[in-house]
């Protein structure tokens, strides 16, 4: 048990912080639902920051650390699937990468665009295909990711290839990716709320000095800390039960916290003038992935205590 970063992990995250510094804040005039940067994406790819899990000595744990750190940025970048799912399929898989569950209800897919690699998680196998223009229907969403609907039935996509990775392994890795991303998003969302309520005064004192708010923010940070540790442990252990618990915990934590944070911002929390939504509405998009918190919990129960539904 050693919970501090290794020298190599510190160096990687330090370099990542320097690279991401220009993107640490939303532009002052930003008023959109989503913030993306092609330059950031290229810099991450060129710098090899999305390839950590290809290196056995760095592994999924370092990749999860990268995912969590980049999720703290107000910019939505295609990091989690590239960092944690792509290495299971092979280095020749082209970015951007997005993932869908076969047979699941239709939902907007993060980073789906013509040319993207779509990884399809079936019940018993994993396939992928390159999305053609006709597979994709662009949509406007309030979620802070670029999203589109996959109009082709995932089972029948042209040129789909099968991968030699068990569906359970991919699902577990997806759960880790989800948990790590949620942990990073929560961290920033709580952080910017703390800043706001420390400055905003009502009744002659900062809002954040009222115990009603202090306690709820303290609870939120305890849950966010738990989400981070569960995600990192699951990344390290590779155990599917750990992964399901981590995803459940993260989705459960985020469910309660997102509304609270907007609540603490008062009317400012319903505007696009503050970037809070760039983290919280990404969180909202993640709450339903892989069936949501109850599905992860049921999955965890199967894995920990045996199937018995």
């Amino acid at each position: 048990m050693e919970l501090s970063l290794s020298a190599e992990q510190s160096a990687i995250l330090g370099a990542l912080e320097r690279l991401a510094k220009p993107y640490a804040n939303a532009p002052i005039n930003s008023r959109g639902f989503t913030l993306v940067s092609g330059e950031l994406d290229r810099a991450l790819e060129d710098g090899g920051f999305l390839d950590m899990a290809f290196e056995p000595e760095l592994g999924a744990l370092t990749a999860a650390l990268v995912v969590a750190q980049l999720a703290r940025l107000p910019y939505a970048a295609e990091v989690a699937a590239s960092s944690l799912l792509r290495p299971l399929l092979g280095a020749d898989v082209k970015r951007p990468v997005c993932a869908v569950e076969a047979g699941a209800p239709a939902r907007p897919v993060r980073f789906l665009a013509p040319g993207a690699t779509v990884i399809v998680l079936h019940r018993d196998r994993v396939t992928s295909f390159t999305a053609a223009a006709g597979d994709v229907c662009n949509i406007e969403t309030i979620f802070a990711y670029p999203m589109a609907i996959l109009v082709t039935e995932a089972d029948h996509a042209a040129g789909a290839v099968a991968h030699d990775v068990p569906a359970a392994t991919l699902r577990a890795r997806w759960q880790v990716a989800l948990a790590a991303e949620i942990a990073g998003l929560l961290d920033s969302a709580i952080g910017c709320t703390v800043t706001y309520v420390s400055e905003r005064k009502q009744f002659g004192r900062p809002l954040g000095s009222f115990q009603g708010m202090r306690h709820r923010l303290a609870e939120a940070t305890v849950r966010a800390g738990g989400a981070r540790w569960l995600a990192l442990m699951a990344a390290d252990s590779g155990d599917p039960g750990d992964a399901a618990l981590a995803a459940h915990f993260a989705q459960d934590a985020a469910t309660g916290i997102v509304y609270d944070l907007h609540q603490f911002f008062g009317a400012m929390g319903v505007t696009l003038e503050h970037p809070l939504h760039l983290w919280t509405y990404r969180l909202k998009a993640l709450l339903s992935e892989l069936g949501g918190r109850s599905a992860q919990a049921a999955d965890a129960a199967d894995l920990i205590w045996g199937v018995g539904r």
Partner: protein
Amino acid sequence: MKFEWAPQHQAFREKIRAFLAENLPADWEHRAHHGPGSREQTEFSRQFCGKLAEAGLLIPHWPIAWGGRGMDAWCQIILAEEMWQAGEPRGAQYMNVNWIGPTLMRYGSATQQARYLPRIARGDAIWCQGFSEPDAGSDLAALRTRATRDGDIYRIEGQKIWTSYAGLAETCFLLARTGTDRKRGISIFLVPMDSAGIEVRSIPSLIGEGDIHEVFFDGTEVQGEALLGEEGGAWDIIGFSLNNERLGIPRYALARRALGRAVTILQSRGAFIGEAVRVQASRAASLCEAARLGSYDIVDQRVRGVAGTGGASAVRVATVMAERAVGEFVVEFLPDSLCEAEPLLKAHHQRAIVAGIASGAAEIQLNLVATELLGLPREPR
């Protein structure tokens, strides 16, 4: 960063498990459900801790100079987990080895050390902690029990309340007021509980037998040498003591064991089916895991000598969430287990409510997290 146990830590855990398997009686769960403060468990703890001491497992984390083995904080938490999830066979003595001993090592006089430490190290000492008073619970610095110097002695007047283990303790680690300053006017006395003028009354409770008490001091006289450290120096000393006890009891370990037991019982009845029960079981398991990993984060910081403030309070909050979730799971899905037939679940359910109360209310911990971890502005007083 790695989450696997080092071989020496894994071996240490296995050694404790083997010791427990050999030394806990077959009916231990039935005995343990009385609680660490009960007469039965206290008596058991004297012989059990003696054996632990002989096996080098009572104070392995103490410095070698004091009879310990100088093992690291990982060993301390492994020991605490295994003991607590086994129903704390050390009884009240866990407190001695966790923080009373280390506090005496640091602040005690040579006489105090010679008098108390060997007995703690032998596993034959029961202490109680005289902190809370009727008007000084969370606001500890409001305490009013007074120790007045009279020549070579101090005379103590006042009342303590909710004092764990006081009924059978030989010594009280007592906070008393020697001056008027809120914090700098408090001193610590090591008070023999057989001194004249001490009356202990047991308070009937929901959490087990002999656990909480009122203690009255009516002109109790102690020698000047009972003073620990400087007069008025209590606040710094208890800061050190609490730092040693900051991780508190690894309640998540017993909570997780109780959850596992509950699921096993449900499975044996064919009742661990359907999404509702399975979702809630996983939810509780995830909260136990969060408390466990949060605790390990603090241990890791301690081992590296970088432990900050606030983190341990966050762990206390996480532990309360875990205890609650497991308690609620059992109450919802296995209510009949809360009677004699399932002593482990009964004992867990009975004592889980203490998680957010003992050694600093959860609300105080939330305040500490808000101020020290998040940097939120303090509430005006």
